[in-house]
């Protein structure tokens, strides 16, 4: 019987819980107040025996809802992991006995704390249902790769090698991308001494002969609708025909464009055909067809070439790049070697600022260049004069003098600009001439690439400088659109070897997304979570806050303006739930109600007891672990505090605050992650949304005639082991100062 719920509580008396607390009272609290139908104590609940006891009750007694009162929900996770039941943890160890001194005068308040956590856990459990997949999904193993350059081709071959069918959508008439026009590439294998063949033709041949890969040339993505596991993609071809594909997950590998140096006065790029970009040099080298490279102006064999590095990069100037390609010096070395190979004893000089040849391969390649008598000059180029010959004027930074050199050909190291479609969240362009120091990344493409049929825009959001990622250190593949992964120079500038590795990683994420979507399991970071948001339609006012505030653009609207959740696009942070003013959005095991019940079932002592209550809503990813670590360090937390972990502070409903204040809580502390440009929120915008909404709490406090300092929002990091408890203790002092809430009765 699916509807038959059976609630069971289990109280661990190990780790000092039994010594510090009255377990009999705890059990009574769970049964009487918490309405657990059965309640058992165990002296070591996490032991195989204790766990077996719970498993037996689930199997034999039909227990569907389990309340475990023991250690933190972060401890013994593997032991307390039961499939097919709703589970909650009352934190009596890290949450109570480890943060309270073991003295007689504290016994009473410590016990009260523990009893409250049990009441809260039981109340939460009562309003939970067992999460199960929605059934909306089915397994679709097709992977779509947008872009047929080295990154896209590699992603396709790698996904296909794992057994997944792939569709490559390529805008041009041929596969190969930039690399198809390259003479050679930077070596990807030891001994890292000479440029190597690009291998592009072999890759194209491998794709042509791979029966799992379908190539759509002269094609673009006209529309992408749906979600991971059920994307419906319309492919438009140049000829006007269109094709509809069912896709499980998407890899965007649309590469880069080279920066156009025309507007940079110093380099005089437009003044002479013999001043070329590094990309153009590849074409000259390829056109030389094994003979000497000739200069474009008159076809003379090049006898001297100057490579000017770092052109328009690392710049604070508007219209230039604030970052660097990172690979420009390796490219220059490779190209200087072309001249050593094809043009006899051609003079090759690389004028650099900081030479960037990192890693083992990079440094080996640099040494190989020195052995080939390529000259490296630390220089700041000040101008290039054109005339009968080119004259590069520069300051030699080692000799500390202004000087110049003549060259037949000058090669400019221009940077790579990501071909990311338009950023859905780009600020509208300011029309007036502002004092804005903010520089804009040069936009190369304003056309949509994915044409997502999403409420929040057509393409992957940018993070910085036009790169389309969201957590580039720990989780580099995470974009803000679930099941769509960026690969190659779209994420950061990179060379072919790195792009190939990157493509394999993106293919990994794509097949994983397809598999998990097929099972209704969440994607990163709540991987495997089966709960998903649903809403009570009759209560919904179509206000659209959830569809607008979802950090992942997961929610669409139907024709009447009701939300459509697309759970395979959802990361389960609950920001939609926090956004909803009418509290109609919920997850099976996490809802406005599950938290509200916890708030309401904490006992509020009468005013004359002089025992305040402080509600703490703590992000479970950072603030809560910080509090756990504080407990391990023996840092004290005020006995009036009651901590409730939340999936993300962005899921905080304003109603929790209002209800808590109305129920007589004396202070409320909200702990979320750092927001802003260097945000640390795992759900990108959750903590920012929370801060924005809580800005309105002042009105609530005012209407209740309460002091504004009763509610505080803090950014708390996982390392705030001393600070997080202090913030709670500070609130206790505040309450001491301003007095108890008048809302106790």
């Amino acid at each position: 019987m699916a509807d038959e719920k059976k609630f069971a509580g289990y109280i661990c008396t190990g780790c000092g819980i039994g010594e510090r607390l009255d377990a009999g009272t705890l059990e009574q609290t769970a049964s009487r107040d918490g309405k657990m139908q059965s309640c058992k104590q165990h002296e070591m609940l996490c032991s195989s025996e204790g766990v077996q006891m719970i498993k037996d009750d689930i199997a034999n007694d039909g227990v569907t809802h389990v309340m475990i009162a023991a250690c933190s929900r972060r401890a013994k996770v593997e032991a307390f992991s039961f499939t097919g039941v709703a589970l909650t943890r009352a934190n009596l160890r890290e949450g109570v006995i480890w943060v309270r001194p073991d003295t007689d005068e504290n016994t009473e308040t410590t016990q009260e704390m523990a009893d409250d956590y049990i009441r809260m856990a039981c109340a939460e459990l009562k309003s939970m249902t067992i999460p199960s997949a929605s059934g909306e999904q089915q397994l679709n193993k097709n992977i779509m790769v947008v872009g047929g350059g080295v990154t896209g081709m590699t992603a396709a071959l790698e996904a296909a090698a794992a057994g997944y069918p792939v569709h490559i959508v390529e805008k041009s008439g041929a596969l190969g991308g930039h690399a198809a026009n390259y003479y050679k590439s930077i070596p990807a294998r030891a001994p890292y001494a000479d440029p190597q063949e690009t291998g592009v033709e072999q890759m194209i041949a491998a794709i042509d002969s791979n029966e799992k890969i379908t190539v759509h040339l002269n094609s673009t993505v006209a529309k992408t609708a749906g979600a991971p596991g059920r994307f419906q993609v319309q492919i438009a071809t140049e000829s006007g025909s269109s094709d509809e594909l069912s896709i499980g997950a998407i890899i965007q590998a649309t590469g880069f464009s080279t920066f156009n140096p025309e507007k940079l006065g110093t380099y005089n790029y437009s003044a002479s055909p013999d001043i070329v970009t590094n990309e153009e040099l590849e074409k000259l080298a390829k056109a030389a067809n094994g003979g000497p490279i000739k200069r474009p102006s008159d076809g003379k064999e090049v006898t001297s070439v100057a490579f000017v590095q770092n052109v328009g990069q690392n710049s604070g100037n508007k219209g230039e790049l604030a970052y660097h390609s990172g690979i420009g010096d390796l490219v220059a070395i490779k190209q200087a070697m072309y001249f050593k190979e094809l043009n006899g004893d051609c003079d090759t000089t690389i004028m650099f600022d900081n030479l960037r040849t990192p890693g083992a391969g990079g440094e080996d390649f640099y040494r190989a260049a020195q052995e080939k008598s390529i000259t490296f000059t630390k220089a700041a180029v000040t101008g290039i004069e054109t005339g009968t010959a080119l004259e590069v004027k520069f300051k030699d930074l080692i000799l500390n003098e202004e000087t110049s050199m003549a060259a037949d050909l000058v090669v400019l190291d221009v940077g790579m600009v990501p071909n990311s479609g338009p950023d859905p969240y780009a600020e509208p362009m300011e029309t007036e001439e502002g004092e804005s120091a903010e520089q804009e990344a040069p936009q190369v493409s304003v056309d949509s690439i994915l044409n997502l049929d999403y409420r929040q825009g057509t393409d992957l959001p940018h993070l910085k400088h036009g790169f389309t990622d969201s957590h580039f250190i720990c989780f580099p593949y995470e974009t803000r659109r679930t099941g769509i992964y960026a690969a190659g120079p779209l994420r950061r500038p990179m060379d072919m070897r790195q792009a190939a590795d990157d493509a394999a990683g993106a293919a990994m994420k794509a097949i994983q997304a397809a598999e998990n979507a097929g099972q209704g399991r969440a994607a990163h970071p709540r991987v495997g979570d089966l709960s998903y948001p649903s809403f009570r339609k009759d209560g919904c006012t179509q206000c659209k806050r959830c569809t607008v505030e979802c950090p992942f653009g997961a929610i669409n609207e139907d024709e009447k303006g009701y939300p459509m959740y697309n759970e395979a696009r959802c990361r389960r942070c609950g920001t939609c739930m926090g956004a909803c003013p009418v509290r109609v959005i919920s997850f099976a095991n996490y809802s406005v109600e599950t938290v509200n019940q916890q708030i309401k079932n904490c006992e509020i002592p009468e005013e004359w007891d002089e025992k305040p209550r402080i509600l703490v809503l703590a992000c479970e990813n950072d603030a809560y672990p910080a509090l756990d670590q504080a407990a391990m360090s023996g840092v004290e937390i005020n006995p009036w505090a009651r901590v409730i972990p939340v999936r993300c502070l962005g899921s905080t409903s304003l109603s929790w605050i209002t209800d808590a204040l109305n129920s007589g809580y004396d202070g409320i502390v909200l702990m979320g992650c750092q927001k802003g440009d260097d945000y640390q929120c795992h759900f990108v915008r959750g903590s920012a949304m929370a801060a924005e909404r809580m800005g309105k709490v002042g009105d609530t406090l005012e209407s209740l005639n309460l002091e504004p300092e009763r509610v505080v929002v803090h950014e708390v990091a996982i390392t705030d082991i001393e600070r997080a408890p202090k913030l709670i203790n500070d609130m206790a002092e505040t309450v001491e100062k301003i007095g108890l809430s008048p809302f106790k009765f």
Partner: protein
Amino acid sequence: MTEVIATNQTILVVGGGISGMTAALEAAETGKKVVLVEKRPYVGGRVTQLYKYFPKLCFPTCGLEINQRRAKMNPNLTILTMAEVTGIQGEAGDYTATVKISPRYVNDNCTGCGDCATAVEAEFDNEFNYGLGGVSKRKGAYLPHKMAHPQRYVIDPAIIGTDDAEKAKGACKYNAVDLEMQEETIEFKAGAVVWATGWQPYDANRIQPYGYDRFANVITNVEFERMADPQGPTGGKLLRPSDGKEAKNVAFIQCAGSRDHNHLLHCSRICCMATLKQTHFVQDAWGDEGKSTIYYIDIRAIDRFEDFYQSVKANPNVSFIKSKVASIVENTENGNPVLHGVDTEGYNRYASEYDLVVLAVGMEPSVDKASFPVDIVVNEEGFIEPAPENGGIFAAGCASDALDVNRAVQQATGAALRAIQVVNRVAGTEG
């Protein structure tokens, strides 16, 4: 006896640092069975010892928490700690791994209550803090750090046979302390292997002119990282080891042992960004009184991170000197290290005195190239080459090159796919 259930469709991941964890989790979250073998008593590797990441200046434990939660919740993943792969035989799709497991003397009954640590008296240098200045100690029964996963105590083999060991045993109410535990060697099957044994800091003692072994106030960048961490040996205060004096005037020497024929041939890629980040520690600790001077050959901030370099360069409290420092001597009156060398931009000689010198030592592969327990193609620098000859063994992270965290994670994700390709082929033929 440790039991591991594994088949030719299992993926073995060697090394549980950020790369190994990533590879293991990505594969496990795609439904593959994974066994992760980690030498330390906990996963997370060297990132657990970093205070902040560049360029966001955020905390490594933040991402670690997510990864550890992923690990705790995934039944496809088996983690063996204090374990080392000593041999791999066979071929792609059919490997047999031999794994040596050192005794932890604490079994999985451990609740992490800490009673054993309270009972034990003996103290040892804390390797988690690189034993910084000999001041950082841990007990003979210990949890390596507060976020250690598994959250299970370790008993130092040095106390076995002493009264302390008995005290630990006596203090444990849960029969978790097992003093009879022995080293064991187990064998199991695997279809593919991800090799993610990571890096270690280059031994600074070998750079003789810098006197790391002679001068207390010459430390390494990994030690400085611990010093800046509020959970570290000085509680986050930048105090120099010799006399506990506030270290306000700090020199950073780049390429200490890197890009050098006498030491590491390669560029370790991360040290420039690490130093740029560490100038923030100096700035944050002392404000305008904190001065950082960076001695460098080239500043390699690399691609997207270059804007971080530009922002540090704009800080008037940070100076850059293009120079390979020739030698360090100590001013015996005050313990200050004195740097000697020539500024190559203008060829000026200098003899500059600082409170503290931080050597930006590079990364060398953890496994010596002569002692890989498996036949694998390794380059001159000791990193694993992406060679088809490696069969079903794929390098991830710093076993393949000197990489920062984002590149290591990226590369490990790709390695996971390549391992999956092999086991999927096995599944295709077996299933």
